[in-house]
């Protein structure tokens, strides 16, 4: 098509008005983000360079807090434990979520809406109630131990089920599974059956067709789900606090501890900033991947 004006595309007055209108519509959202996300974040960033003297905040510019983050072995252990937990939860969600998402997208037929709602349903129940349910299941006198004992599989109740990293992981997997299933469902739903048929027609068996076509085309969903799970898992506070038992603290609990119990705001802010840096790096990497995967040249 030929463009009449040679230079930059001209914008009609009506278009300009519509654009201004759209911006006005976005204003509340932008304001919300500014007041409740960007500003607190900046405050946190500034505080992380301050120091504490005699239980008072003292403005300044000190890198001491960051040095402390990397020097404290207990903190390191928490950070590593948090990363491990987030990783394990993400992996478990991917392995459990994939068959569920695949089934709903490809095999459920007219039941897909019902099943999708069933997957999201736990979101509608308060997190505290969901965790209480896990306590009833996993506790020393809980349903699982009672069942194991009455089946004769064990004589003593298993103590490690509740208040351990295991119960934290179980609680998190349960909580994040819908978060993983939804983007996976969206990705698998976009895979045309004829692509899989074409692979089989060209002599790929079912496993080969899955590895060559279905899996690579599910990758965007796998990445988005993993980012959700990993980032939420990394910063999770409520579930580890209620199911984890408090013997091995995750990084979010450490941050909370710094702020509330030890009243060391600059120390807590520095840890939070390190965590945030990890999260932002992951987000940037995944967004870069998704842009390439969606056909944009890097």
């Amino acid at each position, binding site marked *: 098509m030929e463009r009449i004006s040679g230079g930059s595309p001209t914008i009609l007055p009506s278009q300009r008005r519509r654009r201004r209108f759209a911006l006005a519509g976005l204003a509340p959202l932008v304001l919300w983000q500014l007041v409740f996300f960007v500003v607190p974040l900046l405050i946190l960033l500034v505080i992380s360079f301050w120091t504490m003297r005699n239980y008072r905040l003292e403005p300044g510019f000190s890198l001491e807090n960051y040095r402390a983050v990397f020097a404290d072995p207990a903190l390191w252990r928490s950070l590593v434990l948090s990363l491990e937990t987030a990783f394990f939860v993400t992996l478990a969600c991917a392995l459990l979520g994939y068959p569920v998402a695949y089934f709903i997208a490809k095999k459920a037929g007219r039941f897909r809406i019902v099943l999708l709602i069933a997957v999201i349903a736990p979101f509608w129940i308060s997190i505290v109630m969901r965790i209480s349910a896990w306590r009833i299941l996993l506790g020393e006198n809980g349903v699982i131990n009672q069942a194991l004992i009455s089946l004769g599989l064990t004589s003593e109740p298993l103590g490690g089920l509740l208040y351990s990293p295991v119960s934290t992981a179980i609680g998190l997997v349960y909580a994040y599974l819908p978060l993983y299933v939804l983007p996976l469902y969206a990705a698998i739903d976009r895979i045309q059956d004829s692509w899989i048929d*074409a692979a*089989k027609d060209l002599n790929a068996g079912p496993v080969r067709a899955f590895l*060559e076509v279905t899996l690579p085309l599910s990758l965007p969903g796998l990445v988005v789900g993993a980012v959700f799970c990993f980032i939420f898992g990394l910063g999770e506070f409520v579930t580890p606090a209620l199911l984890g038992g408090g013997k091995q603290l995750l990084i979010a609990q450490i941050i909370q501890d710094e702020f509330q119990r030890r009243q060391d705001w600059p120390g807590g802010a520095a840890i939070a900033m390190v965590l945030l840096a990890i999260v932002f790096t992951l987000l940037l990497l995944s967004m870069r991947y998704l842009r390439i995967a969606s056909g944009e040249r890097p």
Partner: protein
Amino acid sequence: MTKRAGDIELVKVSKRYSGAAAVDDVSIAIEAGEFVTVLGPSGCGKSTLLRMVSGFVEPDEGDVRIGGASVTGLPPYRRDTAMVFQDYALFPHRTVAQNIAFGLRMRRMEKSQIARKVDAMLELLNLAGFGNRRIGEISGGQAQRVALGRALVVEPAVLLLDEPLGALDLKLRKQMQAELKGIHRKLKLTFIAVTHDQEEALNLSDRIAVMNAGRIEQFADPETIYNRPASRFVADFVGEANLFDATVIGPGMAQLVGDGSTVALSGDGLPPPGSRLTLAVRPEAIAVAATGKGVAAIIEDILFSGSVRRIVGRLANGQRVTAMQPAAAFTPALGQSAVFAWTAEAAWIIRP
């Protein structure tokens, strides 16, 4: 007789979907190297028939044979067929070259050999230089050729094409018809194509199977299909035909039902006087004159389209008759009475 790899046979195959037959007791034998088109209206069961050969649909009854051996029950990845899908079904996460290489990789061919074959295929399909394009970066016509190349490169016993040109615009379709025919001539593989476009079928095929409601009405070469359709459906679906119900009144003579005009019949083995039959006459075989021998009709409509003129008349029995003649020929006026005439050889008798 020994079978060649490209011989395809369907023996009394049927497929029902919730009681309704999509393919109904079809038997057909296709010879190696033939270009056969299955022609029929949308929903008549063409795709189902094709997918029975590729293995995506299992017949409820009957047997599918490739190269003389039964393949009924074998999954698609165990059959020596390759399909060009209706929507092409190109892998969106692979380049043009990777799409074409796919079948060769699945057959565990050596890397250098794959590269050589892919290059040759790109060359054959005028796609040289497009190997590294993504599927989203090529035109519809190119996508069609990539789909063709991806199937052809494995040198299957039979190439199956489901409405291969359906998504292209008219000009491109004509061009691709010629290319497809050229490729078939060069490779000498068995091609089975499915289409609802009669012109495409007539242009491309060695033989055409005309399908209606799950059954094959006629399987013959294009000339026979066009000039001597075996049934009312074929006569109507392929080209245009005037169909007249008539009663035999004597040797080589019949009278149109409800009209009284008599027409001449040719050929041996005509039914005895008194029997009813249906006559078919192509519009281009009918000449219109002001007076003379023939069937009288009132002119209802005249359509001029460049080289030819369509003249539509109504007989005394209310039936319409269409003639198509050179624009330079006699042209009656609207509302005038005229005579529609054809030779005995131009009319043929079809099954009622």
